[in-house]
């Protein structure tokens, strides 16, 4: 049986819906990890079923809670609005105009305290599972089911080999690797799904590499 019993007896989650509550919280939590900077304002542009049936399933509370780092099995999720007020986080929910995307899609825009903006799009695909499909305009595919490294680098030769060598030296095995770029010689992105989590030291070392622009670690 190629299915864990904890996929059957699980997930442990805040109700009522694995896709509209638990998945929504996880989506926003992973998006905030990718944005990786403090923010004082966040907008959730909702599409399809997230927009239409979200109210009864607490989708908006779940998204807001997730963006603030509250996990999908944490009962503070229900108090997301009060927690946001306490933290001084402003939030808004708008209607997304997206074509050809999953029914449960949200485009999350973080307004960072340093004045920069991050925009991350993803969907909740059922059973609490998610996909991040776009990071700041670059198409991607992140499930966050494994420890994941998201690296933005200059599109020059040798960067990927340096990264994979460093991971191998730490005994971290790469399960899946996806590489993309905006333009030749421009900004490239590498997504690595790993069998082992990445240590802070290794992440810092990668971040310090000359052609690496940004390293983001997703260890749920």
């Amino acid at each position, binding site marked *: 049986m190629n299915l864990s*019993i904890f996929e059957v007896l699980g997930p*442990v989650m805040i*109700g009522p819906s694995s896709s509209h509550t638990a998945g929504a919280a996880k989506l926003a939590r992973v998006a905030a990890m990718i944005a990786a900077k403090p923010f004082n304002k966040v907008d959730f542009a909702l599409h399809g079923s997230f927009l239409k049936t979200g109210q009864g399933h607490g989708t908006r509370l779940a998204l807001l809670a997730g963006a603030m780092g509250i996990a999908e099995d944490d009962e503070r999720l229900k108090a997301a609005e009060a927690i946001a007020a306490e933290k001084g986080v402003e939030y808004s929910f708008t209607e997304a105009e997206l074509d050809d995307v999953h029914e449960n899609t949200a485009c999350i825009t973080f307004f960072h305290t340093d004045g920069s903006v991050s925009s991350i799009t993803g969907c909740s695909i059922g059973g609490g599972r998610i996909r991040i499909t776009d990071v700041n305009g670059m198409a991607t595919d992140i499930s966050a089911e494994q420890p994941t490294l998201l690296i933005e680098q200059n599109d020059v030769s040798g960067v990927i080999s340096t990264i994979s060598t460093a991971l191998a030296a730490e005994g971290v095995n790469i399960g899946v690797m996806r590489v993309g770029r905006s333009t030749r010689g421009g900004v490239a992105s590498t997504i690595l799904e790993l069998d082992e989590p990445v240590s802070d030291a290794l992440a810092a070392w990668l971040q310090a590499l000359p052609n690496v622009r940004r390293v983001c670690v997703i260890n749920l």
Partner: protein
Amino acid sequence: MYHSVRDLIDQATQRGVTIGTVVLENEMAFTEKTAEEVRSELRRRYGIMSESIVRALNEPQHMVLELISGQSKKQNDYTAAGNTLCGELLGRIMSRALSACEVNASMGRICAAPTAGSCGIVPAVVSEVARARAVSEEVLMDALLTACGVGAVITRNATVAGAEGGCQAECGTAAAMAGAAAVIMAGGSAEMVDACVAIVLMNCMGLVCDPVAGLVQLPCSYRNASQAVNAVLSADLALAGQNSVISADEAIAAMYKVGRQLPPELRETAAGGIAVTPTGKKLHKELKKMQ
């Protein structure tokens, strides 16, 4: 390695071990965890399930539209008064299944089993049968593993999503899992587990998913209570030695086929069944006004 309920039974019988052992060993091989790691996570999840089935017994939970608020307390009080038709065991099981549904609907913490909408059935049946039979923790764990094995087979060979297979796929699967666990805790044989799973599914074949206003409240909570009872009565039929004639795997395949034959209106879209009764529609309008 197992792919069907029959595999589980044959492997357990041939090796002289429990079905739960076969499931545990598969989990260890598949996830590269030790037996203790698997047991410990199972214990943690059962703890969360156990909390969800008692939380609303004395304290009504609050949710959007309040369709099921206070159901668990009402059933619990009625059962405690000692004058039920179903008897104490079924009364306790029903009030506990209702509790988990209230907790889920009110944005409380639950453990899906196999889904959030059906989260009351497995814990209510397992905890109360364990109590009635005073089983050891080891037997309770073995029963839970057996339930997981049955759930995994249905997930892989059919579906547990209401949107795909209707309520029979969600609450029906939960009842099949719970029934299997009940048979184990009552000391039944592996073959009785097969019969019980088949009988559970025969008893709910075709059950549609028709949530009022699209909320996981009504008829979901009553379906949790009734399918929990289905699990226990099917276990009793199997334990009495009733021949299911149709095997568990055949019943699972039939359930899947029926699920696909259901029109979309009867698969979690809130566009059929109880959801589109005049009252159901009125409640749906009320919810829309709140948005």
